[in-house]
């Protein structure tokens, strides 16, 4: 039984809220929060975060996801927590028995 989008969103928001509590970030963590622009994560952070999410939710098409990110103009290159959750949710549905992406 795949997790619902809301279950994943709640869990990832909880994770990111917990992590950002260790930083100098005092804003609210929402689905719209940007990992690079708002949370000041760097490239190594994204690699580690991707590893953590795959530990929790199984193999993700993280390469393709970041590839799409890389196509964007440098100024617009960013990813929100909601977009990460969408990725996980899509993959959960695709890998469920009888699921389609």
């Amino acid at each position, binding site marked *: 039984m795949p997790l619902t989008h809301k279950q994943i969103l709640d869990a990832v928001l909880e994770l990111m809220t917990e992590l950002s509590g260790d930083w100098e970030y005092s804003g609210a963590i929402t689905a719209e929060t940007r990992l690079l622009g708002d949370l000041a994560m760097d490239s190594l952070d994204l690699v*580690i975060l991707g590893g953590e999410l795959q530990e929790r939710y199984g193999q993700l098409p993280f390469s393709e996801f970041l590839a799409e990110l890389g196509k964007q103009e440098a100024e617009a290159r960013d990813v929100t927590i909601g977009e990460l959750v969408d990725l996980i949710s899509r993959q959960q549905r695709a890998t469920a028995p009888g699921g389609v992406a």
Partner: protein
Amino acid sequence: MTPKTILIGLDGATFTVLDPLMAGGVMPHLRDLVADGVRATLRSVVPPLTPPAWTSLMTGKRPGEHGVFDFFQKETPDSRYFRFTSSHDVQSATIWSIAGDCGLRSNVLNFPLMFPPPALVGCLVPGGWMPWRQLRLGCRPAGLFDRLKELPSFNPRELSHDMALEEKVLEGCAAEEYLDWITLHTRRERRWTEVFLYLMREEPADFGAILFDGVDKLQHLCWRFLDPALAPKDPTPWERDVRAACLNYFRELDGLIAEIVAAAGPDATVLFASDHGFGPTSDIVYLNTWLERRGLLAWAGDRGARPDATHQVGINQIARHVFEMDWDRTLAYAATPSSQGIHIVRRAPGGSGGVADEDYHRFRDELAAGLMGLRHPETGRPVVAEVWPRDEVFAGPFEPWGPDLTVRLEGDAVVSILRADAVVGRRPEPAGTHRPEGIFLAKGPGVRRGEAVAEMSLLDVAPFVLHSLGLPIPDDVSGRLPVQTLEPGWAPPRLAEPVEAASRPLVGASVAADPIGAGVALDAEEERLVLKRLSALGYLE
């Protein structure tokens, strides 16, 4: 419970630096420990580099046997794309996983390749390229990070990896930044020690291991201030200040070592080991330029990063070769400077580029012969001391992941992967670089006292640790118990009987039946996406 064994890792430590510091009174506690114990040169593995070498220390195995070759790992044996090496690549039992299997607890701090966190009986705070913003994700058991946050001096930003600071190690740092940078590493070692001492009190373990990696970082950037042979005769005030800051780092480190040894108590075995040694470097060998001149490598148009003032390539640029090269006209390339390796592009089934299987050995032999024939433009002397084919140096189940050829350069030269106007260059000021000769020191029950003994292999450290804990040495470990360090006939009480490797349940290490990625054949589109991913992450420009 008091610990049976304490391992203090000194990344990159060398007697070239430590001996004068001990003799000169900068490290009196370490001097006294040596007088009360045993010392030996510790020969590292090929390549003498942090990820493979510490993994060899943890496992007692060579890179071809444990699966870690470099900071980056190939996606697949024939892929030209590389990803960060992680704990999943350590495909062998480790000293802490074996201890856990036998019911012993371990506290492990600041060792590389510990994320995602492997199962461990005890406490883990990972090191290596673990970014400070996510340090809590790597701490085990659950809740440990929050407990550490309660410590008055706990500061993850100073404790863990900060990409901007790390790049200064390889890319150089402005003169006015040296003192702050050195002082940061002095504070960082204090932070790690405070965590270690806290765990010794609150989470007592049979085996404790802590790695001080500032030694390596200082030696990279500040070698000319540490090597007595390079000390300026008439130093400028700035040079005096930098030298003083370096000495202060080692003085403080000595004090931290004394605190740990005192906390461990008189009955503990305490050992020190470095993953590799260090020495000066001035010459740079541009391997990809050499390959280009032999018609074996082509840059894509105007691409090909050229050396800047520091003549070094930083972390963010290390994988840029994927963008830089014309893969239709490239047969061999050096992927990273750290691996000292050359990869041969193999012809894909049905493809036209690359080296065909039937030509592989001839091509590789000719390449090796060419490298051995390379001469220094000024001295006429050989540039390359040794060339190893991977089946010779990386024999084992993970051999296909290693470079096809690995070089050891003559003298003090290092490898660069950059595009240059000449095959051999020279940096304006000497820097520090890795050498195979590291250090081993130990004291404790059954350890010889006041002796310098014959050279050991890095692979022998794991057997030494297991023996000191009273644990059996698995029969698949390539290292051997360094009996020259021990009193004849002495053995600690046995805690467990030897078991064959195949039958031993592995608690700590995640050992896959096949190498990670073994069953994954990336098609062209997937490889393109990996390339894009690297680009998105900033590893390529």
